[in-house]
């Protein structure tokens, strides 16, 4: 393994593992989990190191493991490991190819993170892309194609970007991009950002996400939490490492923010808003989470677009948080689906009493998603807001803030619809999720709590990344963090909260309470034994009615019309091949004439 170094550990081990895991038919996923654990453990020696290596397989792959890569890789490998751990009980049939494909996707993802030249970036990107496609194909067949098309679209945007770089420099290296004119940079960055933006599901390139996220939950957790972060990483590298801040500033600045980045920031804010609004009205648990992660990645996009030190730090931190809490949510949903077999929120209810641990984990994830300060989810949102407000951006900031208010709505939708309310008759004997699932969820919950008490650690890592990209480091201490216009100290907040919680605990403990059955309930004197009390169906109806005139427009349908139009055109063109030899002979004659004439004209 030392011969190949980082390539061996982070790319070959999963690849070999994928083949080996396939052979253990029944235990494939467990074996795969072990192979996924290797890179995530092997990562720790590489903390704050800078290892590079060139692998020559006929094309040269330049791989580097620096703090940026380390940070993202930590995220991804942990997610992959816990997703596979979760999948051990979850995946019942065809374990083999699930495990294989997840590991291939992991290898591809690690490769993308380590790649320092466009060729290997593209190779690993596509590897990850088709493995993901096949994983989606396992569950939701028709929509997998949609994912693949958008995946290929993004790949081709990236190819355009790469090609223009190659046109100017004749090299694929990230480092060799000197002497490219600004016009060239504009197109390169545009194509690269669009390409990676597809993976981040930025509106209007988001239509693949809601359907792709209906695949098996452990994989979706990895896809939404982990693989979508490759988009973040790609944009980060493209804009701030390959191009660099000075090039971006070269496009002209608006209050110190690059005019190239600002539209993307605005787009991100719009994405956050649209994703949130659409998430509020979903009844399918998986779709709700999908739209919410579209919205959350919108926040990340804002940070990437603004590109001040604070905003970028916030974006990276939010990507980290989103990776963990959204995977946690998807896994929680997976646990519920695994136990009940239902997807619709309105068909569940009261499961929190039967699955307390799952409920607690999901509750923490939702605190993080809603940005409640007792989780680290708050800090990243805080940084993004303050970055936007400090720069006096009066369009981005309100959109982000109102979107985060909307997040409360769908968060409560999940909590109430799934875990609270009435426990329906058919779920009377639902059991708690099996141990591996709980373990996986617990692993994902830890960072959210730890980094909310001690944000200093992770802010330190992020500052390293920012410094390596030539930006100012963040201002932070172990427990507190600062922006130009404000500050917050998590330790004091925690202590105060704990003390006050104890105070209210004392008042609460003065009297004992008696537990009554859920049907012993105020129903105007009625006490029926069989009744549906769960008010989760079409939960936000009044809001939906008020939004109806806006909601009737759908980007999705626009795409379908578009593709329909083209297929009709293809049918017309197909008529060119009349199955008639005379015509074909005529074609040859005409072709001969045209060729000769063109040739003579060229002389």
């Amino acid at each position, binding site marked *: 393994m030392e011969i190949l170094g980082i390539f061996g550990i982070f790319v070959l081990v999963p690849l070999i593992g994928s083949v080996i895991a396939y052979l253990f038919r029944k235990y494939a996923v467990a074996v795969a989990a072990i192979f996924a654990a290797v890179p995530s453990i092997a990562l720790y020696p590489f903390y704050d190191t800078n290892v590079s290596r060139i692998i020559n*397989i*006929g*094309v040269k792959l330049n791989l580097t493991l620096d703090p940026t890569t380390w940070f993202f890789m930590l995220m991804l490998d942990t997610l992959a490991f816990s997703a596979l751990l979760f999948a051990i009980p979850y995946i019942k049939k065809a374990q083999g190819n699930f495990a294989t494909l997840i590991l291939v996707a992991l290898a591809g993802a690690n490769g993308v993170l380590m790649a320092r030249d466009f060729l290997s970036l593209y190779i690993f990107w596509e590897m990850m892309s*088709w493995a993901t496609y096949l994983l989606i194909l396992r569950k939701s067949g028709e929509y997998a194609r949609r994912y693949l098309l958008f995946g*290929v679209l993004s790949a081709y945007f990236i190819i355009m970007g*790469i090609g223009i770089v190659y046109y100017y420099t004749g090299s694929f290296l990230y480092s060799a991009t000197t002497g490219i004119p600004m016009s060239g940079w504009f197109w390169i960055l545009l194509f690269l950002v669009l390409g990676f933006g597809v993976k981040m599901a930025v509106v209007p390139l988001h239509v693949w996400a809601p359907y792709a996220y209906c695949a098996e939950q452990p994989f979706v957790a990895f896809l939404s939490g982990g693989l979508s972060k490759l988009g973040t990483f790609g944009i980060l590298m493209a804009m701030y490492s390959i191009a660099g801040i000075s090039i971006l500033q070269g496009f002209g600045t608006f209050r110190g923010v690059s005019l190239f980045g600002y539209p993307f920031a605005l787009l991100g804010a719009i994405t956050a808003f649209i994703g949130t609004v659409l998430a509020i009205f979903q009844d399918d648990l998986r779709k709700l989470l999908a739209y919410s992660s579209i919205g959350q990645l919108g926040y990340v996009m804002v940070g990437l677009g603004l590109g001040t030190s604070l905003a970028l730090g916030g974006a990276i931190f939010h990507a980290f948080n989103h990776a963990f809490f959204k995977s946690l949510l998807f896994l929680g949903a997976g646990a519920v689906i695994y136990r009940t077999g239902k997807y619709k929120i309105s068909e569940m209810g009261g499961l929190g009493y039967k699955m307390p641990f799952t409920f607690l984990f999901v509750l923490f994830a939702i605190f993080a998603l809603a940005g409640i300060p007792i989780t680290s989810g708050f800090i990243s949102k805080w940084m993004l807001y303050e970055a936007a407000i400090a720069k006096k951006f009066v369009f981005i900031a309100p959109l982000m803030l109102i979107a985060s208010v909307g997040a409360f709505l769908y968060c409560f939708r999940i909590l109430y619809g799934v875990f609270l309310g009435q426990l329906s008759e058919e779920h009377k004997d639902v059991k708690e999720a099996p141990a591996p699932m709980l373990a996986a969820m617990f692993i994902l919950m830890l960072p959210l709590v730890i980094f909310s008490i001690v944000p200093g650690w992770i802010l330190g890592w992020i500052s390293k990344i920012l410094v390596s990209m030539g930006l100012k480091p963040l201002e932070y201490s172990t427990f507190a963090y600062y922006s130009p216009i404000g500050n917050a100290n998590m330790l004091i907040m925690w202590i105060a909260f704990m003390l006050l919680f104890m105070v209210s605990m004392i008042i609460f403990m003065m009297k004992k309470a008696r537990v009554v059955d859920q049907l012993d309930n105020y129903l105007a004197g009625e006490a029926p034994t069989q009744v549906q009390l769960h008010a989760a169906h079409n939960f936000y109806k009044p809001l939906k009615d008020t939004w109806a005139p806006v909601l009737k427009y759908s980007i999705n349908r626009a795409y379908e019309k578009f593709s329909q139009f083209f297929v009709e055109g293809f049918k017309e063109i197909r008529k060119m091949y009349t199955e008639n*030899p005379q015509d074909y*002979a005529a074609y*040859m004659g005409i072709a*001969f004439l045209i060729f000769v004439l063109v040739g003579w004209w060229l002389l």
Partner: protein
Amino acid sequence: MMVQPVLLIALPLFFAFLLPLISLWSKKVLKYVVMGVMAFNAILAFIVLIEALKAPIFDIIAGFQPPLGIVLMVGPLGAFIALVINVAAFVISLYSATVTKEPLLKYYMLSLLILMGATGMVLTGDLFNLFVFLEVTSIAAYGLASYNKDRKGFEGALKYVIMGSIGSSFVLIGIAIIYAQLRTLNMLDIATRLGEMDPYTKIVAFVSLFLGFGVEAEMFPLNAWVPETYDGAPHPVSAMFASMSAKSGIFALARVIFTIFAFSNYLWFVVIMGILTVFFGEIIAYVQKNIKRMLAYSSIGQMGMIIMGLGIGTVLSVQGAFFQMFSHAMGKALLFIAAGYMIYAAGTDRMDKMKGIGRNPLIGIPLLIGILSIMGMPPFIGFYGKFYILMGGFQQGYYAIIALFLAASIVEVAYYARFIKIAFEKSERKYPAPNIWVYAPLIIFAIIIVLFGIYPKPVMDILSHVAAFLAGGA
């Protein structure tokens, strides 16, 4: 040891006419004999390749010195393509064992002849031999195309005959013009003395040769025969067309473009023909319901990509083009074999009737690998060719054409994804399990695709000789 490349041609020819005698003794052994011959040929081709990598081989036949005599001119690239053709031929010959329809004797003779013709077209250094081998290939191909003796077969074969004969007559005209002006047929000789030709006639000669080989190379608009012929022919034969005759045609085309007439100012037109081929091939493949027709149109698209690569004409793109020949020969042969099995197993050639046919891993995994490779997904061999051709295009700054090409290949991805979905979706229908003659070739091709996809270094080393080839060498 010094291997005579001529053996590559002589051996199949010899055995093709030995087969009747063998069949008198026993009909059973025929297929094993053919497999043996082709396997031996493949090994021979490999040795020749190693030789050719040291230095281009000029093998003079019957003692006449060039420019008078006929000569085999085996450069590294020629040897490489020859190797590809022979390997493909050998693996396909395994699949041919499933062909049971009489007269088997003729089938095997013709398949040996098509191999001989294709190899000859690649190896020869002499324009007239090129024409002769082209004729051999085409005539064997006509025979094989109509081998099924059914309506589809005959119709396809007829169209192939018409187009093919027009094409070869074009070639003959071109050769005639050149000979009339230069009194020589040796390619290098022609290349050196091309300046003496009257430019207008030179164009005519070039276009004639270009179109003539364009028919074999499935270039737009000369490719109309492709879908019906591929559809009508027996399944192994479709695989042969895709991986052997088409490859020899495109290699001949490459020779015409670079070795003989090294125009630089005409190339952009070739690029346009290439992109048109890609475009129409892919979008018409999208609306096909018949699997073999879909594959046929998609192989038109692939060949168009190769023509594009040749036309772009930078070292990188031509390397890509040759890599694409290799990957397309392997991948498309795999897909045609798989399609053959599917048509046999599902009892129809309509794709929507093949639900869940790929759920048997012996078929499914190679099928998936083949399709991904054709789509150009790393780490399969299909990727490198596509990527290099594109990068070459970027070097020349053909942005619009590349955008068009990428759009076309999104369409390609769309229809292959549709097919994957059908092939792997759940269905209670049970299909007969493939026998060894079906899945062995599939697996061999799949292994080649993955192996050279993960470690393409050997191929890349061979393709590093492209520069010399472009300079007008072998």
